[in-house]
């Protein structure tokens, strides 16, 4: 699905966000990316959803070098990648139905897209997607009147409507409470698994990453620090990953004590663990 070789990304003249990332992701894989804030995780995701271009190195999506894509091919490739962001990047003033139907924009003609703003098209797809994420009754609500968790569900519903091959979620649960975080991650994982989508999630919570994902990629200072199944991610590795990052000391303490916050209910899907 993805082949990244020696990717670097430099912003402006000074700041290098990624510094030689090599990563392969196979179709259907579920991957969690963890690391301290400022490590370059978000930059990595914006490269993966083709919003940014690498400064050097090669990024291949489905075998094609992204740097050589034409405008049309780039748009085409983007329709196959669905992204869920940390802040709900929805248009608050539009009603939920339009934000969800925006998942169709890669397929619709411009005329169809504009017509849909006046009279929503293919409403049943939006309605079904919202029902899947558990807020079917919010179809015609104004998006900025929903709670943070509900908006994140709208973002997931949009990706469902888009029906991409890859789902990228950049810290999708960092702004919701822990129990909702578990619900949303479970939802993302199950939805991706049903339709054999590749899922990459950027997570702040190490607990969630280790409990839900069969492959953990640690990123620090723009480099891949480790790329391992969760049972081989040791506390020592995590300490090195988060060294100097005070915010994460508390969650490392809990892990060191053998604390399992979610119990058996949210183990990885069977068949994923090596």
């Amino acid at each position, binding site marked *: 699905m993805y082949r990244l070789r020696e990717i670097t990304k430099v912003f402006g003249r*000074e*700041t*290098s*966000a990624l*510094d030689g990332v090599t990563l392969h992701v196979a179709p259907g894989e579920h991957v969690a990316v963890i690391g301290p804030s*400022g*490590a*370059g995780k978000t930059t990595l995701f914006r490269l993966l*959803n*083709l*919003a940014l*271009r690498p400064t050097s190195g090669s990024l291949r999506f489905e075998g094609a070098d992204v740097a050589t894509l034409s*405008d049309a091919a*780039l*748009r*085409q*490739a*983007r*329709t*196959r*990648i*669905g*992204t869920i*962001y940390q*802040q709900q*990047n*929805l*248009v608050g*003033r*539009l009603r939920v139905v*339009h934000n969800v139907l*925006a*998942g169709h*924009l*890669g*397929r*619709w003609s*411009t005329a169809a*897209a*504009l017509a849909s*703003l006046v009279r929503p098209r293919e409403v049943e797809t939006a309605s079904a997607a919202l029902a899947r994420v558990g807020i079917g009754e919010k179809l015609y609500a104004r998006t900025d009147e929903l709670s943070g968790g509900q908006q994140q569900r709208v973002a997931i519903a*949009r990706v469902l409507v*888009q029906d*991409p091959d890859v789902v990228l979620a950049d810290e999708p649960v960092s702004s919701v409470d822990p129990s909702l975080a578990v619900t949303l991650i479970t939802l993302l994982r199950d939805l991706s698994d049903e339709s054999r989508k590749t899922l990459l999630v950027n997570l702040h919570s190490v607990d969630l990453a280790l409990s839900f994902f069969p492959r953990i990629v640690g990123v620090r*200072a*723009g*480099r891949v620090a480790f790329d391992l199944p969760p049972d081989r991610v040791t506390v020592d590795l995590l*300490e*090195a990953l988060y*060294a*100097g990052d005070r915010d994460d*000391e508390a969650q*490392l*303490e809990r892990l060191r004590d053998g604390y399992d916050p979610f119990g058996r209910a949210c183990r990885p899907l069977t068949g994923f663990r090596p």
Partner: protein
Amino acid sequence: MATIPSDAPVARSLASDRKSGFPWLLAVAFALTLVGSLRVAEVDPRLLVERDALANVGRFVAGAWPPRVSAEFLGLMARPVAETIQISVTGTLFAVLIGFPLGILATSTLMWRGVLHERRVQRRRWLLGLPVYAVARALLSVFRAIPEYVWAFMFVRAVGLGPFPGVLAIGIAYGGMLGKVYSEILESVDPRPLETLQAAGASRMAVVFYGLVPQALPTFVSYTLYRWECAIRASAILGFVGAGGLGQQIELSMRMFQFDEVLTLLATLFVLVALVDFISGRLRARLL
């Protein structure tokens, strides 16, 4: 837990808190300008309380009370009041017709930079939109740099006395302001939803109508209504140079020392402005 020094800092240069001396220089220049202005503008509060000045004020106030409310005079006012309202409404409409297209052309995020132009920025071909953008911005600056009464003065010479030069003056001067503000509203919308739409494969038009327009529209309408409030006040002033409306009546009555009429006219203008403020305020509160 042990602190391991980070091996590869993300930023290669250290953060610095050095302040430049430039703000101080500006502050001194500002203070000097202020002192100089007071001298050049001949500010002298004593002039206000001199005997002649007080006598003039007294004559004006005595002449103004009681305001003239005869049925004949009030009947005479109906037309200028209607004219003032019409000048402000038509003038604002003209301003939107001028300001909206120019404002779009003067928006950098629509013309040459930002999310919508990612490919052109990468290939350094953004120069295509740049000249159009620069011309639109320059036009808008000229339109709003010249005050509306100067425009009105010129249009009175061109198309004669009456409300039409007032409409043109407000249309052009306010068109310049609206265009500038429209472009700023468009540039300040949150770019993240736009990037999200684009990342899902939406076309540029779709990005504009699903991401940009919904974010900008309420502020557009709200600011246009606010400009309409200002246009009511302006259309009163424009009468002084012969562009119709209440102002023309005020100027006439003043020139004939009919201060009781002036008071009635000013009171009417006040009611009109307050009414428009109220209506547009209510509308804007519902929008935002």
